[in-house]
C-alpha cells in the first residue's frame, strides 16, 4: 500500500508539473532554452505610435533572424537573390534606377506594393514575399548549420517555417525607421532650413503645392491609395489598384510612397516615367491628367491649368525634398548586412 501511495504521489506531482506548462514549446536546443529577449523599438518623439500585432511581439532574436533572411539569398529557389538585391541600404533600401519601393517606415503601413496588392499587416506582406514572391523552399533552412538554431531562438521551434520567416522579416522591417533627415531635425527644432528649403516646405504644406494631404507630416506618406493623375487612359501596370479590386474607381490608384531619401533616386513613380525630381514637380505643376478616378484632392477649382508654380517655386520645392535624405538611416549598422 505504501508503494501505492508513493506512486500516486508521484503521479500527482507529475500532473501538477506538466499541467502548468506554457503553450509555447520551451524545449531546449542543444542545451539552450527558448528565452527570447523583448526588443524595444525606438519610436522618435515626433512619430506616431505604431500598432504592433500581439501575435508577433518584437524580440532581439526575431529581429536578428529577420535581418539575416533579408540579406540571405537562401530565400530564393536558386539562391540567386535576396531582398537586399533590389533594396540597397545606401539608397534608402530601394534601387535608385527603377520602381522598387523603398523599405522605410513600413511599421506604419497597411498597404503594400505600389498598387496596394497586399493590405493588412507587415506579416501579411511578408507572407506574400516568402511564399509568393520568393517561393522559398524552407527545407534549405532546415538543413542549414545555423538557421534551425536561429529559428528556435526566435520562435521556440527549430523547424524553419515560412510563417516564422515572414514573422521574423516583419520584425526586422519594423526596425527600419528613418527619422534623422534634416527635415526630421527641423521638425524637432534641432536645425533650421535654408531660405529656399523653407519656401519649399511652406509650399509643400499649404494649398500652394498641396503635397501634404498625401505626404503628411512627419512620415511623408499617408500609406493610402491615390490616383494622382499620371494617366487618363489606363493600360497594363498603370491600372493600379484596379488590378486587385476590379473597381473602376481604383483605376490609376497607387500607394503614396514615403519621400525619405527621395533625392537619391533617379526613377520615379510606379513605372519609372520620371528621372529627376524636377520632372516630378513639373508633373504636379502642369501635367496632371483628368479621369473619373482622379483623387479629389487633385481637382481644385482655379488650378485646372496646374499649380502655377514659378521656376523659383519649383526650385525651392526640390531643395526642400533634398532635406529628406537621412544619412543616419543609410549608414545604420543595425540595418546593414550581417554577412
Amino acid at each position, binding site marked *: 500500500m505504501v508503494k501505492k501511495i508513493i506512486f500516486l504521489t508521484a503521479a500527482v506531482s507529475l500532473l501538477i508539473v506538466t499541467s*502548468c506548462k506554457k503553450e509555447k514549446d520551451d524545449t531546449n536546443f542543444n542545451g539552450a532554452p527558448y528565452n527570447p529577449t523583448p526588443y524595444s523599438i525606438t519610436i522618435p518623439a515626433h*512619430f*506616431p*505610435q*505604431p500598432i504592433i500585432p500581439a501575435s508577433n511581439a518584437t524580440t532581439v532574436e526575431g529581429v536578428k533572424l529577420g535581418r539575416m533572411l533579408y540579406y540571405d539569398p537562401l530565400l530564393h529557389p536558386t539562391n540567386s537573390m535576396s531582398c537586399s538585391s533590389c533594396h540597397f541600404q545606401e539608397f534608402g533600401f530601394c534601387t535608385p534606377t527603377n520602381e522598387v519601393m523603398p523599405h522605410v517606415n513600413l511599421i506604419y503601413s497597411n498597404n503594400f506594393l505600389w498598387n496596394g496588392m497586399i493590405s493588412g499587416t507587415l506579416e501579411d506582406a511578408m507572407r506574400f514575399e516568402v511564399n509568393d514572391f520568393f517561393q522559398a523552399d524552407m527545407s534549405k533552412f532546415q538543413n542549414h548549420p545555423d538557421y534551425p538554431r536561429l529559428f528556435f531562438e526566435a520562435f521556440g521551434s527549430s523547424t524553419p517555417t515560412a510563417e516564422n520567416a515572414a514573422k521574423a522579416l516583419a520584425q526586422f522591417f519594423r526596425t527600419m525607421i528613418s527619422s534623422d533627415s534634416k527635415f526630421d531635425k527641423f521638425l524637432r527644432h534641432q536645425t533650421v532650413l535654408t531660405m529656399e528649403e523653407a519656401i519649399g516646405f511652406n509650399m509643400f*504644406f499649404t494649398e500652394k503645392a498641396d503635397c501634404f494631404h498625401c505626404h503628411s507630416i512627419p512620415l511623408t506618406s*499617408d*500609406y493610402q491609395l491615390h490616383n494622382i493623375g499620371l494617366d487618363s487612359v489606363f493600360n497594363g501596370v498603370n491600372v493600379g489598384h484596379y488590378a486587385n479590386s476590379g473597381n473602376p*474607381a481604383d483605376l490609376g490608384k497607387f500607394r503614396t510612397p514615403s519621400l525619405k531619401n527621395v533625392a537619391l533616386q533617379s526613377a520615379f513613380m510606379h513605372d519609372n516615367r520620371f528621372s529627376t525630381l524636377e520632372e516630378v514637380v513639373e508633373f504636379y505643376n502642369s501635367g496632371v491628367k483628368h479621369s473619373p478616378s482622379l483623387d*479629389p484632392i487633385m481637382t481644385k477649382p482655379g488650378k485646372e491649368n496646374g499649380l502655377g508654380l514659378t521656376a523659383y517655386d519649383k526650385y525651392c520645392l526640390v531643395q526642400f525634398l533634398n532635406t529628406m535624405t537621412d544619412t543616419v538611416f543609410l549608414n545604420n549598422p543595425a540595418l546593414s548586412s550581417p554577412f
Partner: protein
Amino acid sequence: MRMNTTKLSFYLSLLAGVVLLTSCKRDTKVEDDPQPKNNNVMVSLSFECDGKAITKDVFDYTNDAGNNYSVNRLQFYLSEFVFKQSNGTEVTDESAIYVDYFENKGMNFTLGKIPFGEYDEIRFCIGLPPSLNVTDALPNTLDNVNMAWPVMMGGGYHFMKMEGNFNTPSSTYGYAVHLGKNAFLVRIKILQHFSFSTSNQKLNMKMNINEWFRNPHLYNLDVDGNYTMANDTLMAKIAENGTDVFTLW
C-alpha cells in the same frame, strides 16, 4: 490516530485536484472595477443619404442642387458632448472621438458617467474645441497625424474630410469637403426626448450626408466649389449646413 491508507489516498487525490484546479490560474489579476459601469452610454453611428445606405464609390446620391455624387472618404471628429436632463441638469463628456466610416473606426463608442434618467437635449460638435484644435494636442496616432491641419495654415486638425466624385453634364470631377479652423466648428443641438436606464444605455445617431449640402445654404459642388479647404466662404456654408446632419433614432 493513524489514518488508514485508503483514506490517505483519497485525501491525496482530493488535494491534487484542488492544486490542479488552482495552480494554473493566470498571473495577471483582473481588478474589480470600483466604478460600476451602469451609467456608460454606448453611442452607435450610422450613415445615410436621404434614406439610402452609404456605399463607397457608388454614384447613388443626389443632393438638392442636383449633383449626382459618390463618397470615398468620410472622416471626422466628434467632441464636447453635453446631455441635458429633463430637470435642467447638464452632464458633459469631453471625449474626442475619431470616426472613419469606410475604415469602420469610431462607429461605436462609449461616453462615461451619464446618469440614468430622462433627457430632452443633446449637444456636441463635429470637430474639435479650440483647446484641442492645436497641433499635436491629440494623441500621436497615425489617424490623428493624417488629420493634421498644417501649422502654416493655422495648425490643429481637419474637423472633417468628406471626399468623392460628382457628375456634371460633361464629365466626372472630384470634390473634397474639408472643414477646419475654430470658426467652422459645427455645433449640433438635438432637442429630442430620450432616457437611459439599466435596460437602455444606448444612443443611436444617424448622419444624413445630404444635409451638408442644404439648409440654410443650397450647396452646388459644381457652382459653389468642389474644394473647401483654405476657402473660408465655402467652409462657412458647409459648417452652417452641418448643424442638422445628425438625428437620433
